[in-house]
């Protein structure tokens, strides 16, 4: 039987290989700020179009 993927990768060391981001932490921080931006925009929308 074919075995599942061997655990060859080292999660903490693997680089995201995404332009502009050297670490996964950078990507997570970006997503966090993106989310805050979305909520802020929605709050503005709620306020501006009362």
């Amino acid at each position, binding site marked *: *039987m*074919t*075995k*599942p*993927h*061997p*655990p060859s*990768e080292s*999660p*903490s060391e*693997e680089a*995201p*290989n*995404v332009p502009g981001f050297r670490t*996964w932490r950078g*990507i*997570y921080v970006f*997503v*966090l700020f*993106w*989310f805050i931006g*979305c*909520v802020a925009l*929605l*709050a503005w*929308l*709620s306020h*501006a*179009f*009362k």
Partner: protein
Amino acid sequence: MNWIDWLVLVGTMVGIAAYGTWRTRHTRNLNTYLKGNVNTGWLTIGLSVMATQASTITYLSLPGQAFESGIDFIQNYFGLPLALIVVCIVFLPIYRKLGVYTAYEYLGKRFDAKTRLLGAALFLLQRGLQAGITIYAPAIILSTVLGWRLDLTILFTGLLVVVYTVTGGSAAVNLTQKWQMGVIFVGMVAAFVILVLKLPPDATHIAGALGKLQGVDFTPDLKRRYTFWSGILGGFFLSLSYFGTDQSQVQRYIGGAALREGRLGLMFNAVFKIPMQFFIVMLGALLFVFYQFQPNTPVFFNQTEWQRHAQGSQGAELRMIEAKFAAVHAEKQEKIRAWVAARDGGDATLESAARTAMIESHQAANALRQQARSTLLALDPTVKTKDSDYVFITFILTQLPHGLVGLLIAVMFASALSSKAGELNALGTTSTIDLWRHFRPLAVHDEARNVRNAKWFTALWGVFAIGFALFIGFAENLIEALNIVASIFYPSLLGVFCVAFFFKRVGGSAVFGAAIVAQLLVLLIFFCGKIFPAHEIGYLWLNPIGCAGCIGFSLLFQWLLGRRNAAIAKS
């Protein structure tokens, strides 16, 4: 629908299904069948995750929900990006490192066989029920408005998805979901553009003034269903359990060439999910404005049901309500125009008076819609009075050009198939790996037999879902029904996983007992809320309560077990 619509609909649906079946017809390898092609890239994984989560209910019911009560449902997704970050950091690396096929295999490795079986059983129970809803929801609406037979619509949708999911497994699911998402994207954007072109210039201000654009509510009220707090906390736990512990999602991202692909696929969802949902709820809010200026806006959007009763012998009262509503609706239109003129004029006093008159008129129209529902219910107690699910489909059928109608109906079917395929694939996999192989340990190394059984289980779940869909009926708004079922069964499962990841000293017996107690606690709170509505809490709160309960009971039971073992050892 004319022949162009049929051509687009059948061509798109059958074409994608046939393509998926043909491309994956030689899948014999268990790993490919259960996890998908090893070369699957992050975009395919991301789209697959998105397609599995967003069923027809998202595209059909959510605009209706926003039409009815505004865009506040968007807050339900506030916890999602945060949950996906946690899945990327904690859950995904562990699943990849252990090379498991299912999330519940991990529970078996971390705790014991009974905890693994409990996790698998909780998943099969709630996902099996939801699979029925996923197939029933679009079928009931489409068959009603298009005049198709409900049973044939369910059978066609169900069998089509069963064919390619059984044939190609996860590889076919990933492949077809990518194309189906393409159809959905094109169709929804086209509908949105046409709607915007039909709107008056002050559409967003009108929607806002009539309370449809309240996207964030910071009120700390447990009884309100959608607030910032319930979204961020309840939504976080709901998303964490869905993406981290539900096999239909886990299966989408544990495949791929490397950990990077799964992580980027999830981050793709973390970035695009809220904007996508915003786009859909805005569609609903703008549909609301559109129908304020339509002369023949129905008092009840399920016109098939309405006409059936209004034209019957006892339909006089319904016809009277319809006439009254038409008059109030016309008056409201004038009040809205007057408010827009006053607003543009810049006179605050005039604007305020016009706004009050407009809101009063809107409330009068709403009261008539409510009266229409109660009268309809009095005439026929079996009728479903929540008509918001019919708003968007009514727009599609009456306002879009031919060809696009077919494409939008294809969107509804594509989303049903993509979501259903992910579910069936996961149900078949969990049944094979966590149940069948558990009771047939000698068959573990027979690859051909494993693939054959995975196919059989997938087909069986497909038949179960079709059968369930043929015999059910729902009163709640459909998207809420799905989330409520999830909020009842997910929390204790998430609690088990949290204990597994973060509380290394807790063993299988403690967490097993804790999961059962936490599940009972959630059921108790839910049913108490139904029996005593005054004390009902928003269903999203069941998620943190159930999860925290499971963790708390685990720690308590482990402590008690430790004390008992110490006492035994001492004696």
